[in-house]
């Protein structure tokens, strides 16, 4: 950088434009700092206290973090979170395939586009209750299994982590396909149709068109979809878990974001402890997002 700084190389006219641009961005930036940065700073500071939501607010050093990691609770929650991340590749790949099918105008594509998006407009709480009923011990799935003579497979799906988490992955994937499809479809609209026509003429089949033509051309869109899906899985599954298992039995199906709610608002008044879990969650999301961005940059360099 020159001695004159970042603006040194700009002409007076460009400098004026840049200043105007900064002024335009400033109000939004201030709002963002106020509603995002300030709470994050407060949460970070409170994570070193025994804050109970009222007046207990003593500095306890790293005690909350020691409790979180030392009790084994964090690893239990983190494992659940990581398990639920399995839905991300599923929803992105299925979303991509559906998007290509819709893009190629398969018969009835308009109806399919609407149908795939329907889960997105249903409240996650309602979906949670629907899936809870569907996978209940006496639910429709088990009735089908029993009538098919598969009595041994008719279990209480939500009772154990081993079966409850795959059910949740299925539910999240089913819910998210529509969103992924619409976003990828939006990205695909920027691809010149002649590319597809040429591929067809060259004899590329559906899978080749999807993975060798579409995928490399929309790497940035796919990155966006993956990053958003990961963040969403870490921070927004609360209503689904609330209505399906309430994180239980015990903490079997609880995730980090649900644990924060549990400790802060639901059972107990350990807001300082909940703040420490929030800080850890934020760091995890930042790390995973950074890794994904790196991978995406490398992919874009290779195919983009």
């Amino acid at each position, binding site marked *: 950088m020159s001695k004159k700084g970042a603006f040194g190389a700009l002409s007076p006219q460009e400098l004026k434009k840049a200043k105007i641009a900064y002024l335009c961005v400033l109000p939004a930036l201030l709002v963002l700092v106020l509603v995002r940065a300030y709470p994050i700073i407060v949460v970070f500071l409170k994570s070193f206290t025994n804050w109970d939501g009222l007046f207990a607010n003593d500095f306890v050093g790293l005690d909350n973090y020691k409790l979180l990691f030392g009790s084994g609770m964090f690893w239990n929650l983190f494992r659940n979170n990581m398990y639920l991340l399995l839905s991300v590749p599923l929803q992105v790949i299925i979303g991509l395939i559906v998007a290509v099918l819709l893009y190629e105008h398969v018969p009835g594509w308009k109806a399919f586009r609407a149908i795939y998006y329907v889960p997105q407009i249903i409240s996650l709480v309602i979906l949670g209750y629907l899936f809870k009923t569907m996978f209940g*011990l*006496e639910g429709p799935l088990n009735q089908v299994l029993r009538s098919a003579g598969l009595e041994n497979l008719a279990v209480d799906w939500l*009772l154990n982590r081993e079966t409850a988490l795959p059910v949740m992955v299925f539910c999240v994937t089913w819910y998210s396909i529509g969103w992924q499809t619409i976003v990828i479809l939006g990205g695909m609209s920027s691809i010149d149709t002649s590319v597809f026509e040429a591929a067809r003429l060259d004899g590329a089949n559906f899978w080749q068109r999807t993975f060798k033509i579409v995928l490399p051309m929309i790497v940035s869109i796919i990155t966006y979809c993956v990053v958003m899906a990961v963040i969403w899985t870490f921070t927004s599954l609360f209503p689904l878990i609330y209505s399906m298992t309430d994180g239980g039995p015990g903490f079997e199906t609880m995730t980090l974001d649900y644990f924060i709610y549990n400790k802060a608002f639901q059972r107990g008044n350990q807001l300082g402890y909940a703040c420490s879990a929030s800080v850890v969650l934020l760091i995890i999301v930042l790390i995973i997002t950074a890794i994904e961005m790196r991978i995406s940059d490398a992919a874009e360099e290779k195919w983009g």
Partner: protein
Amino acid sequence: MKKVLSIVLAVAMVLGLCLVGTGCAKKEEEKKLTIWINGNDSYIAPAEQEKSQDQWYISQAIKRFEEANPGVKVELIVQADTEAAHQQFKADALANTAPDIANLWTGQNIYALEDVLLDITSMVPQSDKDNISGWDAVTSPKTGAILGYPTADNQVCYFLYNRQIINDCGLDFDNNPPKTTEEFDAAMQIIKDKGYQPLAQDEGFPWFGCYIGAYWWVSCSTYPTIISDCEGTTKFVDDEGLKKAYSYYKSTFDNGYLNADALTCADSFNKFCQGKVAMMPQESSVVQDAEAALGAENVGLLMPPDLPGSVITGKTIGGPGQCFVISKQTKNPELALKFVQFMDSKDEMLNFLKVQPKVPTRKDITAADLGYAAGSNQAKLVEMSANTIYWVDNSLYPSVSGDFYALLPSVLAGKMTVEEFAAQLDTDVANAK
């Protein structure tokens, strides 16, 4: 023309000022109270929720209060998540946006909020202290301050049973109820052998563990032990009553007496009302709905049987599980108290009990006043209310109550032993220190 316009403008200005003045005066006269009501099991009955809000009992009561107090406006806010309402109240109190009055759970739930609740000790008249029961449940053990008024519903826990199924199994709970857990097991085995589901509950939240399991615990250990466990003076792992009570609780699941989907289902009461279940651990709020579904003649109430070696026998869990508290921040403490006292007045409690026939907290309301026929379930509830021990889970310290609720279902599911459960509660006590 200019003159006319000037006159019109001047008149408009004067009129405007007058109107604004009148409005301000009106606003000054009007006093507003905001009240949170628990949306689950208090003043809003399940049947009422199917009606429009203005038809609910609580809306009608508010209307009566407003009519009796001109210039007062009461705003009703329904708290759907009662459990979270306590923390929400705390957060709102810090943000200076707490309601004037809140309907919360009693005991430790409000003691933890003492710093933001109005101490009404000196404001409670002796007549209320004499005529309303449950003051212990709203009096801080630390400071002795009265923090609220018990609400109208004096809850009682019991096993709700389907008389038709019980009789079909050759049992007679009316004249020969099981008094001990051995007898209870024998009865449940007979019911099971007959092809019925003996017990059912949505135990994802440990209702059975709180309604009846906690009775078994306190009947073996007694309150001083439980409190000293919470304080860390003694240990939960050494509390034989706790282990005995919740081992028996778990055995009901292991033996197939409690519904196999207890930990994940949400429709046990529906199944009971459909006549598919013989018994349900319950509290007094649901009797009316059960009678409406099965017919009053087919619904019976059974006191919990006693574990061998119990120190306390023949009792059950109950008492006013809910209360009205007043925020310290309220601008109208006297008016807020007036509203609470209005809700707990004899006339208003009678109005409430017409909508939800429950056990009143007022001692000057008898079963006869309420028109409960002798031998009816409602009359029986009133009788049973004399034999209650205050809610154990409401008495657990906040440091342990979270894991008590969260981990008890794990004990039932066999994910952890009762000893591990007790050890975790001890860890919670140690961490809180």
